[in-house]
């Protein structure tokens, strides 16, 4: 209506902020700074240890990609205001299910994988439904599932196969179309050419002499990148992404304006289970066996990566790119400490200190974004 429509830019109550500073202030900033710092540090302290040889790069890339896969799920779920402590147990459980289906029941691998995915996503949905229906904190509900799933992962193979590790899946998976999607490598041609051209190192002896040391990009990395792109797109560019933010920011408020909060949360629990299942399937297909100890503590690693990446533990704020950078930092630090030959029992001390440092940095950045709170 009638009003002096002074443009907000000319508001006398705002201090001038430089454009650069404005462009920098985003949830991912902490992750970006962290990544730069980490790479610089390791270039200095472990530059000559093979960490940046093609084999070394592949090594920390694979580890980071692993973290990324579960971090994407954990990130979206955390932004939606919940978190899932059963991710690690779910990884163990999914791998074990694939093994039991293929080895004990003798199903074709693609069928075992599909059924396992369906099963895990159903368990994710169950997690979500319990959280949403009872209003209990997800910490408790998923903690219960942490125990239940791990219990079954230890109990079932013992009952059926009398051991806690089931192997031989790689043989069963040979030639399977779906298994190749999780266990294969892409761009093998390119790497052979690179090796022949002398750009990357080749094996010098043994039965693979002449082949390049890195012979392709594992599907694990492809999955990680696909999930990151999907998650980022979903969160920032779609209506559903707005609902995820809203559900995590204030569920009651979101419900009032008609956001189907329960649906959003349950879907995110299912997506987290899906990511855990992708992780497990890649692992089983790469290593050919499933064990009762797989995935221990992975839930914390996922949460740590997400939090390093700038998300708010209480929901409603965060970024998938940030979580991916958090996973990268985590992976590089973990493997880099080995390259830098740090006493291995001090690894946890470093991890703790880095975590603290990262969250303090992120908090500072977030305060700049939202003004002093």
């Amino acid at each position: 209506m009638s009003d002096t429509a002074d443009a907000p830019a000319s508001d006398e109550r705002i201090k001038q902020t430089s454009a650069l500073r404005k462009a920098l202030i985003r949830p991912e900033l902490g992750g970006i700074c962290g990544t730069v710092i980490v790479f610089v540090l390791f270039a200095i302290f472990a530059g000559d240890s093979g960490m940046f040889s093609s084999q070394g790069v592949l090594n920390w890339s694979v580890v980071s990609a692993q973290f990324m896969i579960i971090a994407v799920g954990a990130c979206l779920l955390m932004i939606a205001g919940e978190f899932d402590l059963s991710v690690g147990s779910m990884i163990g459980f999914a791998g074990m299910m694939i093994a039991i289906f293929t080895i004990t029941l003798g199903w074709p691998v693609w069928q075992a994988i599909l059924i396992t995915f369906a099963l895990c996503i159903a368990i994710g949905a169950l997690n979500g439904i319990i959280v949403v229906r009872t209003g209990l904190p997800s910490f408790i509900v998923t903690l219960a599932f942490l125990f239940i799933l791990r219990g079954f992962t230890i109990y079932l193979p013992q009952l059926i196969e009398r051991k806690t590790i089931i192997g031989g899946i790689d043989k069963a998976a040979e030639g399977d179309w779906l298994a190749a999607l999780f266990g294969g490598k892409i761009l093998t041609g390119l790497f052979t050419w690179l090796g022949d051209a002398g750009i990357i190192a080749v094996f010098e002896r043994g039965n693979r002499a002449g082949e390049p040391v890195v012979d392709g990009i594992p599907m694990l990395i492809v999955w990680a990148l696909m999930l990151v792109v999907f998650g980022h797109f979903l969160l920032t560019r779609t209506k559903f992404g707005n609902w995820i933010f809203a559900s995590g920011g204030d569920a009651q408020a979101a419900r009032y304006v008609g956001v189907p909060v329960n649906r959003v949360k349950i879907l995110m629990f299912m997506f987290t289970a899906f990511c855990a299942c992708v992780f497990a399937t890649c692992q089983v297909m790469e290593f050919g066996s499933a064990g009762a100890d797989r995935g221990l503590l992975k839930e914390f690693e996922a949460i740590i990566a997400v939090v390093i990446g700038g998300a708010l533990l209480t929901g409603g704020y965060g970024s998938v790119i940030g979580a991916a950078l958090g996973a990268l930092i985590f992976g590089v630090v973990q493997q880099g400490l080995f390259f830098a030959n740090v006493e291995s029992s001090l690894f946890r001390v470093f991890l703790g200190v880095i975590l603290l440092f990262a969250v303090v940095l992120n908090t500072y950045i977030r305060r700049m974004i939202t003004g002093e709170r």
Partner: protein
Amino acid sequence: ATASAEGERYVLVSHAPDSDSWWNTIKNGIALAGKQMNVEVEYRNPPTGDLADMARIIEQAAASSPNGIITTLADYDVLSGPIKAAVDSGVDVIIMNSGTPDQAREVGALMYVGQPEYDAGHAAGLRAKGDGVGSFLCVNHYISSPSSTERCQGFADGLGVELGNQMIDSGQDPAEIKNRVLAYLNSNPDTDAVLTLGPTSADPTLLALEENGMAGQIYFGTFDLGANIVEGIKAGTINWGIDQQPFLQAYLPVVVLTNYHRYGVLPGNNINSGPGFVTADGLEMVEKYAGEYR
């Protein structure tokens, strides 16, 4: 790759989580060997004991191009790939501790130093059977790892009985282990023997037996030594400890690799570091160095 220069670098990769105290002897073993041979040694392990993480560590170790890798083969399926790749990229590998000589040959390792878990359990079972044991309780404090089950299973097979419910998942808290053992023995009073898998489960079990008065009455065998276990053996509470001599498992590979790299000499066979049964006889040295070099 025979070079006579000093300062070779060897990496030992284990499958044990950080907190597993038994691996301490291994660390001391390589440290000593490194000092004596004047080579660089490193110890690495997956913090949570996740074997998939261990595979990454072997890959990482290979990427840092050491002269040799000493690793356990806790799960052939998971670890054979990375080990083969390491061998292929020119790193010499020795398998220690877990795995079998056959598997070691298959992955292209130079040799195997250790004590296959199942066989050790089996041998212990046979010995116990000879001593008249018919039923037992296996106190498993790291159930999620496959080697623990193999020990119990081997023992059961050696006795010629079903494992069934005789293995309990005891957890790692000493009070819980103690009280679970008490609870089990309370509701199964005619158990003949107790088998523990290391100091973590053996120490509280000792206390449990003292508390319910069965110390010295019940047949008690254990894997792996520690200070309290040695004392138990001395006191007659523990009948025997299976010593796989972890010190040798760590020390010998370093020596073998160094000599191989410097002078091209290599033993012609695998080395069995165990099983050796430690009993009340000849405990002195064991006692002195238990938990450190024994």
